[in-house]
């Protein structure tokens, strides 16, 4: 193991506590240091691709100590988090000039990154909860960062629902500890394999699904997201929609369901139902929105539905003992959609930030004809929209195609039909964005709208290039075997996770 895994948590954490010392005077220095931290993290995450390892904190052997586990799924999520964090940090350098207390913002941002990296790497249930709370607390504060009445209300709503989710997860962890006598995921998984799932563990699984589902904003639990995401500053909306709901919600859910408890038919169907509900209801609610960021927030719910549908379809096929290749295709589609969605949704939120900065409003009715004034924003936004809708060369097409093929192979034609139908709804909502924001008459008061420049432009163009190139991840076999296949294998192997952790020691 060449890379000590704690650096992924230590670097952002240490930088986060260093930055407030710079204060208002030297905020340029703070910005440079924060950007350096995220770029170092990105480079480290790239070197971790395809590697696996277990790190024991303080050399305490498991199960006495806490361990960090790097496997295929963790390294995929680490890579996604680092890419989005680096791009968003670059964007914030320019965007956050309009707010006071920039150093505090950067510090909270890095704290959130530290929490997410910790969630993804943790091999211990309670440790996962601690990192989840670090990331959540930082995000509650960031949603209320604008200090307007709207921000406080959204932050309060988010915080109440998020706290309820965290407490359910802690309750579930207590039940797991009471029934198995272990907190390390590998040991819990072994204990569950030998004893089977009793009533207490079943209740714990239900609490986990509800808690992580709330963090992931799946449909019965989605109420906080459409308020929290639009109220936050645009870079933070990008982080929340792009990676926070995935690492805290979907990743943790997949880890617990597949690797700790083991898949079962009921859980597979439950995930499919949650996924389809989120897809359809999220898409319907998004079409009616006139606030550009609110529309994108509802579309996040719909896209998270795709990811959960893919994972749930895989779980159901695995539990039914169907052809394992079908299950891995469904999971591959889900995880690839997760990576794609992180890139294009953060890009969409960043462009919405540029639009808001140029026009001073988020209402699409008050915009129009911005193509002339904001050519780069227009191009990047169109690329991201084409990706999310699933137009062939762009990334979103490949992941949706894989989901449709997986549903066909498993002979659930109605699932495939729903996937295509929701894609059409997505097309309608992003055509609406294009039509009302970029085409049509330019209103008189927007004649002076200015295109963003410098670091903001670099960040959006970088993400737009990724949107175009992400399709190569599945088309080039070498890249697919290096990045996506190991992540899929972690989930399809399911309970062999405990043997993997034991084997790495």
């Amino acid at each position: 193991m060449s890379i000590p895994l704690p650096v992924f948590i230590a670097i952002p954490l240490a930088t986060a506590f260093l930055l407030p010392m710079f204060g208002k005077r030297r905020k340029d220095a703070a910005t440079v240091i924060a950007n350096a931290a995220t770029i170092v993290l990105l480079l480290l995450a790239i070197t971790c691709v395809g590697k696996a390892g277990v790190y024991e904190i303080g050399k305490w052997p498991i199960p006495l100590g806490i361990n960090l586990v790097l496997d295929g799924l963790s390294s995929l999520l680490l890579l996604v988090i680092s890419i989005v964090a680096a791009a968003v940090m670059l964007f914030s350098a320019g965007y956050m000039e309009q707010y006071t207390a920039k150093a505090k913002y950067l510090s909270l941002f890095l704290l959130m990154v530290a929490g997410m990296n910790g969630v993804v790497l943790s091999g211990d249930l309670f440790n996962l909860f601690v990192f989840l709370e670090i990331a959540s607390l930082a995000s509650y504060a960031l949603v209320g960062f604008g200090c307007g009445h709207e921000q406080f209300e959204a932050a309060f709503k988010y915080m109440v629902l998020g706290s309820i989710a965290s407490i359910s997860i802690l309750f579930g962890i207590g039940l797991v500890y009471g029934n198995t006598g272990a907190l390390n995921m590998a040991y819990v998984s072994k204990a569950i394999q030998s004893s089977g799932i009793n009533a207490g563990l079943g209740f714990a699984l239900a609490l986990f699904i509800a808690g992580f589902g709330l963090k992931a904003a799946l449909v019965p639990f989605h109420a906080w997201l459409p308020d929290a995401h639009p109220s936050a500053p645009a870079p933070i909306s990008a982080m929340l929609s792009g990676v926070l709901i995935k690492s805290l919600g979907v990743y943790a859910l997949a880890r617990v369901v597949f690797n700790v408890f083991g898949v079962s038919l009921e859980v597979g169907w439950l995930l499919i139902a949650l996924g389809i509900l989120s897809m359809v209801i999220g898409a319907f609610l998004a079409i009616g929105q006139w606030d550009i960021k609110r529309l994108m927030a509802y579309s996040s719910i719909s896209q998270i539905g795709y990811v959960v549908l893919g994972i749930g379809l895989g779980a159901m096929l695995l539990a039914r003992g169907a052809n394992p290749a079908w299950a891995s295709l469904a999971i591959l589609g889900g995880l690839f959609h997760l990576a794609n969605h992180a890139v294009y949704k953060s890009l969409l939120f960043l462009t919405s930030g540029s639009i808001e900065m140029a026009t001073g409003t988020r209402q699409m009715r008050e915009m129009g004809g911005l193509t002339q004034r904001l050519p780069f924003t227009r191009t990047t936004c169109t690329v991201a929209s084409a990706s999310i809708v699933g137009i062939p060369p762009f990334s979103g097409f490949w992941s949706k195609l894989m989901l449709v093929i997986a549903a066909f192979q498993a002979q659930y034609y109605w699932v495939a039909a729903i996937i295509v139908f929701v894609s059409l709804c997505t097309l309608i909502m992003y055509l609406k964005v294009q039509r009302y924001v970029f085409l049509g008459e330019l209103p008189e008061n927007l004649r002076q709208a200015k295109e963003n420049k410098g670091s903001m432009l670099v960040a959006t163009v970088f993400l737009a290039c990724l949107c175009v190139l992400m399709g190569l991840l599945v088309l080039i076999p070498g890249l697919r075997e290096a990045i996506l296949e190991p992540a899929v294998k972690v989930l399809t192997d399911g309970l062999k996770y405990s043997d993997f952790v034991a084997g790495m020691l």
Partner: protein
Amino acid sequence: MLYALCFLLFMIGLYCAVVKKNMVKIVVGILIMEYAVNLFLIMLGYRQNGVAPIIDKTHLESQSALTNFVSNSVDPLPQALVLTAIVISLGSLALMISICIRTYEKYGTFDITEIRRLRG
């Protein structure tokens, strides 16, 4: 029986957080839920007539003393978990209360039905 009472406390907290209209009461409801879960964790490690899980020289003198100690001491791990959970809940409580105070400064009320966007 004790576990059922603990669960009842959890449900009371959940009810309070979901139904009440006053922001401060919602915060109190969340705190009750947190205390219920902390109590549950502590009860997991509890042992009737147990001793404190601190090992000293007398326990190490013979094998039987050690086995006796292990079978009588309470489980220390949930206590460590609860300490961590209390610190986390302190942090989130401070943030929640500060948001409540700032909202009160803007609106002059804690009633969420009078605060526009929190409805529904």
